[in-house]
């Protein structure tokens, strides 16, 4: 799986170090107070706004699918995405055959792999609740697969909320393509 490689340096933790003592101070003001050439003014404070260097994390982006075997992806291609109605989480009548087919593939050609169910939503916001809705769709598919004889221990789930659209045009036809559960195989 993807592993994080902590590589580079140079980022920026920006800390504003103040003369007041409230903020975390990375670099104290080193300049002594200076006098301003106007009598009414008290000694001028100097505040050093500093940037401490932090590290960048960069990730090994070689994704799982490119490293998976060709047979794995071809088996994946044989599994059908399940689509859902607006604001609904039940398996539509026209999707029931797909579930039967997907369960068949899961227990056939894909029987040596784990199944990852990816729940997705249309553009209803990026908050946790929308992720929970995507998960609810994945969970419905999971239960249907179990009912078709797929071992529950082989199934994991994830929700991508609205962050994994296959279509980004603002139309109902497009949104309907985003309300779905995809299948991914894991070794």
């Amino acid at each position, binding site marked *: 799986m993807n592993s994080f490689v902590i590589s580079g340096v140079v980022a*920026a933790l920006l800390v504003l170090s103040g003369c007041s003592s409230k903020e975390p101070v990375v670099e104290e003001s080193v300049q002594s107070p200076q006098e*301003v050439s*106007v009598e009414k*003014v008290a000694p*001028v404070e100097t505040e050093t*706004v500093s940037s401490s260097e932090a*590290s960048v994390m960069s990730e090994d982006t070689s994704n799982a699918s490119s490293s998976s075997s060709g047979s794995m992806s071809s088996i994946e291609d044989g599994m059908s995405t399940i689509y859902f109605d607006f604001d609904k989480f039940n398996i539509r009548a026209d999707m029931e055959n797909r579930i039967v087919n997907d369960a068949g593939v899961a227990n056939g050609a894909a029987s040596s792999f784990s199944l990852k169910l990816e729940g997705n939503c249309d553009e209803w916001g990026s908050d946790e609740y929308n992720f929970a809705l995507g998960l*609810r769709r994945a969970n419905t598919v999971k239960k249907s697969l179990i009912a078709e004889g797929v071992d529950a221990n082989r199934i994991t789930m994830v929700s991508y909320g609205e962050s994994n659209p296959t279509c980004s045009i603002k139309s109902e036809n497009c949104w309907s393509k985003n309300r779905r559960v995809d299948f991914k195989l894991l070794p």
Partner: protein
Amino acid sequence: MKILISFLIAVAISYASDATIEVIKKVDSLPTLAVEDSSVSFNNKFKMKFFKSLVADLNVISLFNVDRSYRTVDYDASEVSYENKEMNYVLRYKLKKDDNGALNIELKILSKDDIVFSKNYKVNNPKIYMFVSHTIAYDINKFMGEEPVEWMKRKVIFSRIIAPKKSELVIADYTLTYQHVIVKGGFNIFPKWANKAQDSFYYTSLDEKIPTLKHVNIKTARSKIIKSSDGMMICSDVSSDGKKLLLTMAPKGQPDIYLYDVNSRKTKKLTKYGGIDVSGQFVNKEKIVFVSDRLGYPNIFSKGVNSHSVEQMVYYGKSNVACSAFGEYIVYKSRESSNVFSTNTFNLHLISTETDFIRRLTAVGVNEFPRFSIDGDAIIFIKNYKAQSSIGIIRLNHNKNYLFPLKYGKVQSIDW
């Protein structure tokens, strides 16, 4: 006349104590302030960038009617520019690059030709000039006797969706002028500062076999895995002392809220409802608010950390899907329309748990992810409107909203 003005101010202050009541301050009633540039270093492009940043910050503190005209004048000139004679205040600054390339700023505020405030600033890397600008505005706000705007100097962390299942975690200033990508590659979302010092953060990685919560110390660049859960794994909130986390997990496909102890690594399940319970937010150490669909639609509820009873907090709106709490106040996101064939509007509303007032904070677009500032003075949120993603700041007691657009991508979630 003085009595009348005093009375009006007293009324304004008394109303301002309840943030759910809108305080309309007329622009004309604010003191005028002009900005004069006396810089002796840097090119015109940089000078103008600094000027714009400072004017923007001075606007956000909402204490002045800020003149946007760019004027130059000698720093030691005894009088303000002719055009600024009628101004209540004139802020004059001088940018100067020293031998080490550092940006030095001398600054003073004149009122009726008297210097009423002066301070010098220094930053080693001129590219982060915007943080100096924020600091100046913070100082001027304080000088004017207002409550500190601590949030202005704080960093924002957000996740930006750049392609399906591809995101970046970005550290920025509150105006997004400064941006640094801290986690690149992969699909990482829901970043959350781990403490007040903002030296580390949590985030959800969706690149693992199951959703995984990770912690990154940005000083040492060390990343460690905190916990994983099938289905969902999100750090919704961090307690003010950084010792407890509110997590949303779904180990059996059922999203629930859990309390996680950072030191002991023990987890306690806080909700048990068979539907959706997500987005836990600390009200204090003993109480949380969260989003649940236990009434058949998403709404905001509260419960004690050590008790089973659940209380409905919001009675307006049939689809309230996100919230943030500060003291007696709760800001929440509400779906205004539910139509499959049209664009939907989500607005933010503010309620007080001690009164019946509701105040709508936004008007158009998809407004989401509200988060109170650390001092409760402001609310930060994400606005998506007409294919533009922005970060918004609401100054509650000044009744003003400010938007800072994102140049590319879409903001998924935010914390500050």
